[in-house]
């Protein structure tokens, strides 16, 4: 018949245990509420011990406050100790608490076998990663196929191009991008010319700074730099815009209006970017060479007249075109990746962020790969 009482922080006991021939009576005291669970739980986990098949009486006659979490705490501890529900009897529950205990009793869920998250080994993860990457490639290919079909239709019937959307996009991806593209290529032009001026001075080949800066800017630097800016600026914007529309069910709404998201969203963006990129690259060429011209004047004393005269001789239109031809190809890839990532977004906010990041990474990588391919092709063709 020993009675044990456990005290709370104010010295008042949380409960007392009374063992008798009938079973174990737990008489609750004080406030069994969510706010006190932290105090109570370790105590009862330590102190409550049950004999097999012992009847357990939960006595609420001296209990002051109770909430569902408090009831759940008791039920949880009993369940974990292997006490079945038939062994438990609620007795002397105060009327104001009875509805709470009843609500919990009715909703005592059969505990779900909690799945332990699987941990994969290195090999398995590599396999899963590869399969996912392949699936992504397949999706991208399918998307390129769909886009090509739409373009085919547009070649047959150019009126399918949505003019308004395309112009709006063109303003965003071209006009608004001019300042940043010009600034960056200008600085690159200065840096290239500056570094080259140091070398050419040594060999007394001052005038060759024109050849170097102009060719480097037009063939490689301007297209690549502009493509990276556009990928970060417009590609990610495409994903974010289209993704947000998708989250908002706007894509479904478009389709239900009989409009094709391909035509309304993808084609105008692609078109705008394909037009914008060569223009931006040309701006980059001019501004970059201008930067080089300033450095040539300051460092090597080559006047702008001499510079332009030399430029005329050493920069064939062909070299300029090499850069400008690459631009629309880069643009098409960036636009396709951006739109595809936007359309294939999952319905949650994290996915939007991940896809936007992924767009930028994929775009930049593919631009650099494409550029390498172009370099080989042009060399083989002897251009």
């Amino acid at each position, binding site marked *: 018949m020993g009675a044990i009482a456990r005290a709370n922080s104010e010295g008042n006991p949380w409960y007392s245990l009374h063992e008798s021939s009938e079973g174990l009576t737990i008489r609750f005291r004080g406030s069994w*509420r*969510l*706010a006190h*669970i*932290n105090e109570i*739980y370790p105590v009862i986990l330590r102190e409550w011990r049950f004999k097999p098949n012992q009847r357990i009486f939960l006595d609420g006659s001296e209990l002051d406050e109770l*909430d*569902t*979490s408090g009831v*759940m*705490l008791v*039920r*949880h501890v009993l369940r*974990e100790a292997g006490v079945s529900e038939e062994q438990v009897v609620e007795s002397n529950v105060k009327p*104001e608490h009875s*509805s*709470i205990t*009843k*609500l*919990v009793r009715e*909703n*005592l*869920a*059969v*505990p*779900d076998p*909690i*799945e332990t998250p699987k941990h994969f080994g290195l090999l398995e993860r590599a396999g899963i990663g590869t399969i996912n990457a392949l699936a992504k490639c397949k999706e991208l290919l399918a998307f390129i196929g769909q886009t090509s079909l739409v373009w085919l239709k547009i070649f047959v019937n150019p009126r399918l191009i949505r003019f308004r959307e395309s112009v709006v996009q063109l303003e965003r991806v071209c006009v608004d991008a001019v300042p940043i593209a010009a600034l960056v290529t200008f600085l690159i032009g200065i840096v290239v010319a500056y570094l080259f001026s140091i070398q050419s001075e040594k060999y007394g080949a001052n005038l060759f700074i024109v050849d170097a800066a102009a060719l480097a800017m037009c063939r490689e630097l301007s297209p690549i730099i502009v493509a990276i800016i556009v990928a970060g600026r417009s590609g990610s914007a495409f994903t974010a815009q289209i993704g947000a529309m998708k989250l908002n069910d706007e894509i479904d709404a478009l389709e239900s209006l009989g409009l094709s998201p391909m035509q309304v969203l993808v084609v105008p963006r692609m078109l705008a970017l394909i037009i914008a990129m060569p223009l931006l690259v040309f701006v980059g060429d001019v501004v970059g060479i201008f930067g080089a011209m300033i450095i040539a004047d300051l460092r090597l004393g080559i006047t702008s007249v001499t510079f332009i005269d030399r430029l005329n001789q050493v920069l064939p239109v062909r070299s300029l075109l090499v850069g400008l031809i690459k631009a629309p190809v880069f643009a098409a890839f960036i636009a396709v990746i951006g739109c595809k990532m936007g359309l294939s977004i*999952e*319905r*949650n*906010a*994290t996915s939007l962020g991940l896809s936007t990041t992924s767009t930028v990474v994929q775009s930049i990588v593919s631009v650099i790969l494409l550029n390498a391919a172009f370099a080989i092709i042009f060399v083989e063709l002897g251009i």
Partner: protein
Amino acid sequence: MPPVIEIQDIKTRFGSQEVHKGVTFSVEGGQLVALIGGSGSGKSVLLKEIIGLLRPTSGRIRLLGQDVWKSSDDQLRKLRNRIGVLFQNGALFSSLTVGENIAAPLREQTSIPEELICAIVQLRLAMSGLKQSTARKMPSELSGGMTKRVALARALALEPEILFLDEPTSGLDPINARRFDSLVRTLCDSLGITVFMVTHDLDSITSVADEIIVLGDGKLLAKGSLEEIRGVDHPWINDYFSSRLAS
């Protein structure tokens, strides 16, 4: 018992638009109160002001005896732990599973051991009438009705003393809407929670509300039991109760 929500002469203005022109009322504890009013009458705005998310232009709001807009951040945080809110569109965290959503308030605001949190989450799911397997779903995989239930389960997580519901039954089919109503009623009765519900649903009002508050023209049009409100002669209230016959 002192009133749990006291609203005194609330005025709200957005630019030149006056949404509330002086609203005063109070809500007794343990009641299920429905706030009705035409679209754009400022119900959601009032709700946000009560829970301290939007500052009214002037006026005083006391929640559980505490002035919401005179409290320090810390007091406000403690006060918020004593209320549960179900937002109009559920507002579940889309990157967390249903189970994690319900556990979020417990994990953030208490230091209860993980296994107990699991048990409480299971209880909340069952109380809200959801299957245990729902816990592993993502919010994007839920139907409208399930979303509302999960949001309710999350709102109940911290054992709130007041539950705020913004249009809990909109977008539900009538059967699910009635089930939701009776669920809220049960919670209100058995847990003694005060429920403050913004709604358009005539059935919710007639079947479960203890008291009805009508907002219109930026003012409190009426407050009282269903019978008392029916007796009020105001064009909007008359239209509202006869809309059932028309449809």
